[in-house]
Every structure is written in C-alpha cells, then in structure tokens.
C-alpha cells in the first residue's frame, strides 16, 4: 500500500511550508535553546490558527476528520524549519488514546479542546531507556497514580497526560490532569521540547484501557506518533540535503566548487538516497493507517527516518567545515532536533525489536 498525494494534500504541504517560512525565524529558535521551560509559542499559535491541531481529530469531536497523511505533511514542513512544539505529535497521540480508549466522557471533554488548541495534551509512556516498559514503575491503584515519568516531552505545559502505568501487575492506560502532578523542568540540548519529570503522588486518573487492550492501544498510539515524527525527521533531513547541496555548489576550494569532489558529491548523493527511502516509507506508513500491517510500516518509517535525519545532520555539518559548527549558522538546530526526535519516540533498539517481532513472531 502506497499512494500519491491528491490535490488537497499537496495544497496542505505547500501552504504549511509557506506559512512556516514566513513565521519561523532562526534567531528565535536559537534563543530558545538557551532557555529552559519555554517553547515556540509563535509556532504553536500558527498551528492553532491554521487548524493543524484539529487536522486528525474526528469531525464529531470538533476536528477536521483528516488522516495521518495530512498531519504527516504538516509535520514534514515543520521538520524542515526545525519549527514545532512537542504538542503537534504528542497532542495527537493523546487524542488517539482518547478516540480509541473506553472513557467516552473524557473523549467528549478533551477532544474538542485539543482540536481548538484550548488544551494541551501529552503522552507519558517511557521510563528510562524503554519507550513502553513491560512493567511500568509508575503505579495505578484505587484511581490514583504514583511514581515518576522522566523527561516527558511537553510535560511542562500540558494540561493532561496519557500515562502508561502498572495496576497490580496489569498494564493500564490512564488520563491524568497535570495540575495535580509535580513537574520539574529538564534542561536539555533541545530546550523548546518542554521536557519535564512528572511526579505523581496519589494523582487522580481515569482509565482508558486495561490489560492487553492497554498494550495494544499504547502500541498503536506510539506507532502513530512515530509516523508523524518520521515525517518531521524526513522534512529535517531533506532541508539538510538542500542546504548541503547549495553550499557545495557555491563554496570553492582548490579552484573549483567543493561539490565537484567525489568525497563531497557522493556524500550528498547518499543523503538523497536516505531522504527518498525515508519519504517513501513515510507515505507508505501514513497510507497504511488502520490496516493490519500498520505497526510494520510505522517501524519501517521510524527506522529509515531516524537514520536519515541523524546521518544528514552529521554529513551536512561535515560538508560545511568550520562554518558548520558555528552557533550563528544554526545547523546545530537540526543536529539537536535529530537527536531529540530520535530519543523522544523511543530508540531504534525498541523499533527494530518490535519490527522483527511483527515479522517473525519472535520476541527479543
């Protein structure tokens, strides 16, 4: 299953690129790096105004009822500009947990607010190096959550979180309002992601799914977020490909453009290959939403895009030489984002194991 973008989808891609080009500036992004606890409010206002928060939420809940394909295209444009707030991905993850969870009242309450941008949601599954721990350290008992989820993206400003927890040996997916949690800002190499340690001490929470259903829902939410992120990573990698290419045709050394040296041009050609393979995987994954092979397609996209963005940021800086490592040029915005996105959605060890388990039936 793969697809061609239709006219409406192409218009979303073009329009989101145009808006972000006009409203996202390198200076603001660079300044944000040195501030803990702030994010790109101007980007988020744009996201709300453009209806990106509503894109993939069903119409009956105040959304636009579009799919992962459209949201992916916006994420791709955001990735190219290193724009973005964690809520584009994590707010979507929270919405999906509500849409497919069992608490219809919570869905009716929060989904319209997520769609309108009035509320911010996030997803708190990971603990340490494990994106979805087999047995969570955070516990759920008698309607209350206890324990800490470390460095949750968006955790500092979100109104609520979807939390992966352990209820007496059985996994649960619950919704907790964060007003009742302790939040400690985490200073990071990519500060605008609003990372916070969330500590729950008897925080009230409502159940969205339990047992096997909780695990299946959590995996689906994670895979969907991974597909959005893969688009963002691909957008970033493609921007770096163009930057590297443009520099290689203008910068001269030894009497010719450096792009005439095969050590440079082949590196850029390899980058092109990684970008196109990541893009093709993203399109395939977004078009496979809701299908049997979705987890496989999502893992494929996650792997290709993570590898592509990391490699592109490494190589693009290298091709620039000294100027590439300056604060002012800002390539480090991509270096940082490539790593934060690689980690936020779970390292590749997790996705490789998940993919092989899906393909062979053999768990790691």
């Amino acid at each position: 299953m793969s697809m061609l973008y239709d006219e409406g989808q192409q218009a979303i891609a073009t329009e989101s690129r145009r808006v972000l080009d006009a409203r996202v500036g390198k200076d603001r992004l660079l300044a944000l790096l040195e501030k803990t606890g702030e994010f790109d409010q101007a980007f988020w206002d744009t996201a709300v105004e453009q209806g990106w928060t509503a894109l993939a939420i069903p119409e009956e809940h105040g959304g636009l009822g579009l799919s992962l394909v459209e949201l992916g295209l916006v994420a791709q444009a955001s990735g190219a500009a290193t724009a973005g707030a964690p809520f584009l991905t994590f707010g979507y993850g929270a919405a999906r947990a509500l849409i497919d969870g069992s608490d219809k009242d919570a869905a009716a309450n929060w989904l319209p607010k997520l769609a309108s941008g009035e509320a911010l949601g996030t997803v708190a599954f990971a603990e340490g190096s494990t994106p979805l721990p087999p047995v969570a350290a955070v516990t759920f008992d008698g309607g209350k959550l206890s324990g800490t989820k470390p460095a949750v993206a968006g955790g500092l400003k979100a109104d609520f979180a979807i939390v992966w927890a352990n209820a007496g040996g059985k996994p649960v997916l619950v919704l907790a309002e964060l007003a009742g949690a302790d939040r400690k800002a985490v200073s990071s190499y990519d500060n605008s992601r609003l990372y916070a340690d969330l500590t729950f001490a008897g925080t009230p929470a409502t159940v969205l799914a339990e047992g096997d259903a909780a695990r299946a829902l959590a995996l689906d939410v994670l895979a969907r977020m991974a597909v959005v992120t893969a688009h963002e990573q691909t957008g970033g990698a493609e921007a770096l490909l163009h930057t590297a290419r443009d520099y290689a045709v203008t910068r001269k050394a030894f009497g010719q453009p450096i792009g005439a040296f095969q050590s440079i041009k082949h590196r850029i050609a390899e980058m092109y290959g990684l970008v196109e393979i990541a893009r093709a995987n993203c399109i395939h994954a977004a078009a496979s939403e809701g299908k049997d092979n979705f987890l496989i397609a999502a893992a494929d996209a996650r792997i290709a895009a993570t590898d592509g963005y990391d490699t592109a940021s490494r190589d693009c800086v290298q091709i620039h030489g000294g100027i590439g490592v300056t604060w002012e040029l800002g390539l480090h915005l991509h270096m940082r984002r490539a790593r934060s996105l690689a980690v936020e959605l779970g390292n590749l060890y997790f996705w490789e194991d998940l993919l092989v388990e899906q393909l062979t039936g053999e768990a790691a």
Partner: protein
Amino acid sequence: MSELEAYRSKAQAWLESMAPKYAREARRGMTVEEELALGREFQALKYEAGYAGINWPTDFGGQGLTHLHKITYDALEMNYGMPTVFFGISLGMPVPILMRFGLGENKEHAAWVKERVVKALRGEEIWCQLFSEPAGGSDLAGLRTRAEPEGNGWKMNGQKIWTSWAQYCDYGVIVVRTDPTVEKHKGLTYFWVDMKAKGVDVRPIKLAGGDSHVNEVFFDDVRLEDSQRMSPVGGGFGVALATLMIERYIATDSGGFGPALDVFVDLVKDLEINGRPALKDARVRQQIARNHSMRAGLESITSRAFQMMMAGMEPGPEGSLQKLVAVRSRQKLSELAMDLQGNLGLDFDPHAYVKEDWGASWLNAPTGRIAGGSDEVLLNTIAEKILGLPQDHRPDKGVAFNQIPA
C-alpha cells in the same frame, strides 16, 4: 476488476501453465546450452501467447500495450525464473534501438527490420550490445574500436568486452570511433554488425562466480556496409545515450536480484549463536529490521512510480536509487547469512540460483555493483543529474581524442 488486474491474472494463469516445463525447478542441473534451447522454445510460446514485445508497436510484431502492462508481466515472470535471461539484453536495448534508428532515411530497411524484430521476439535470433571496451567502461566515450571508410562502406578493427551472450548472438549494435581528431564524444558512429561476419571473433570470459555469459569480441578488418550505419557519422554518442536511456522503469527487485528477506529469516530460524536462537540475537534482529526498512522504502518508490505512470505522470527520479541501494545491501546480507551458517555455509554449489543461495548471491553480487553502471557512476549520476552538483574535473574535456594522454 480493473483492466490491468484482469491482464495480470490472465498472465499469471498462462505462466502457471508454462511453469512445469520451463520454470526454474524444471531446469535444475541443465547445461547453459540446454537452458538456451529451452529458452528459445519458451520465447516462441511467449510470442504466440502475446507476452513478447508487450509495449512494442503492432507494426513490428509487438502487442501495442502500455509500459505498465509490460512491467506487470515482467514482475510476474520474474517469480517463476523462466529461461529468458538470454533475451533480456537483446529485447531490452538493441532491438528497440533498431526499430527506432535502423529503418533508414526513407524507411527503406523497414521490412528487413521487422523480420529481425519478430525473429528476436520469438527467440530465434539474439542481439548483443557492443559498448564497453578494455579502455572504456564507465568512460564510454573513451572507446577505441575504430571504423575507417573503405569504398562505399567501412572497415572495422578493435575489441569490445563484457558483451553479454555474444557467443550466442546473431547481430549486435556497436559504437565505434570514426574520427580520432575531434573531441571524444564527437568522433563516434553507431552501426549494427553481423556477429557471424568474417573477422568477428568471440571469446567467452569466465567470471568469478564460474559462469561465462560475458565475452571479449575482437574485430579484424570486419566489413560494414554504410546501410548498417544507425547514426549520422560522428553522431553515434547520441544514439548510444538513447540506448542507455531506454526502459528507465523496468521491473525492479528490492532484494537486489538476490534472495528475499523471507529467505534470510527462514535460514536464521534454524540457527543458533552461542547456544541461543539466532533470531533472539540483537545483531541479527538489527540487520533484519534495517534491511526490511530499506526494502520497504524501495518497494514504496516502485509502487508510487507505477501509480504515477497509471495517472499519466512521469515518475520521480528516485527510481534511480534501486540498483545502487539494493545490490549493495544484498552483498552485505549475503555475507551475514554465510557467517551465521558457520562451517555449514562453506558448502557451495556453483550452479545454485542466486535468489535462493547465499553463497551464490554473495559471489555474484560484485558483478551487480559494477555492471550497468557502477555504484560510483550511479552516485555521480544522482549528484549531477538530480541534485545539480558539478561534474568531476575532466582533463579530456575539449581535447581531440588523439591528443588525450593515454
């Protein structure tokens, strides 16, 4: 069911009916000559059934269908391993070029060309492509085989190399130098040549994998009539490029024409590393995952190219990644599969099929990375043609061929 789906299922049924006699299983243990004889038989049946020259004009014995029909059929046929390898180049490049450039100024050769085309489609005659030379593979325009005017025709001398199936060929298309005093691209002319003519000497080259499908071809005072000329004098490079541009979108294989990833997984399922199931080993899992992701990407590119063609659009240039990426990774995956088998993987059958056997896949992979555009040339092409990066420094640029330092 769409028209194309109906076509696919009809073709599938036909191939199924042919399989017992002609497919891979039926040919195990045969010599190359036996396979060729069976291949000619299959090709004739294929012609009768309307699966030869699928997208060629009906005027020349083709079916007049679309390119999509052709790649639909080719992808199916590939699964059966039919004995068509001998005709792949013949029908892929030289014969289409003959139809385009061999008719003569006033189509005076049209009847002769049609006769050749039908015989080629039926597998009765085979054509080769005589481009590469010892001094010019990637640097095609650096070729040295020369043709000099002789009476109202030409006299050809020189040597070609890596010519696939030349030992079984009846005709070939050839680029030669007719003027060494001008720039290298400008002194070339394109002809067809009778491979049985006096002075043509074909010598098979045994490759590392043990087979001998490529040849050296020597020309010693070979007579060419001027009617065999398929380009203007000095205009041969353009026709050569046209030859190489044909069929940019052929049936591809994300496995690099080696074993499918399922074959790897099946192998690993029965193996152990240090007393643990190999499938539990993180190194093995990582390779399965990485290869799957890469192949899925290539398959999505192919699928989208197909959809674009169905929608009447030109597919994107990303299709040019297929061979580069797929064959390179097939080579590494083959090494891994051999490692995993340990001493048991030392057992080697030189006649094993590359899509089934890891040793055969590994030993023949380097050919795949060199033939039809080496990895390095493909990377240059992507960099220059798609990304607009500068050409390499070329000291022979603007220099007459006979002034280029040897």
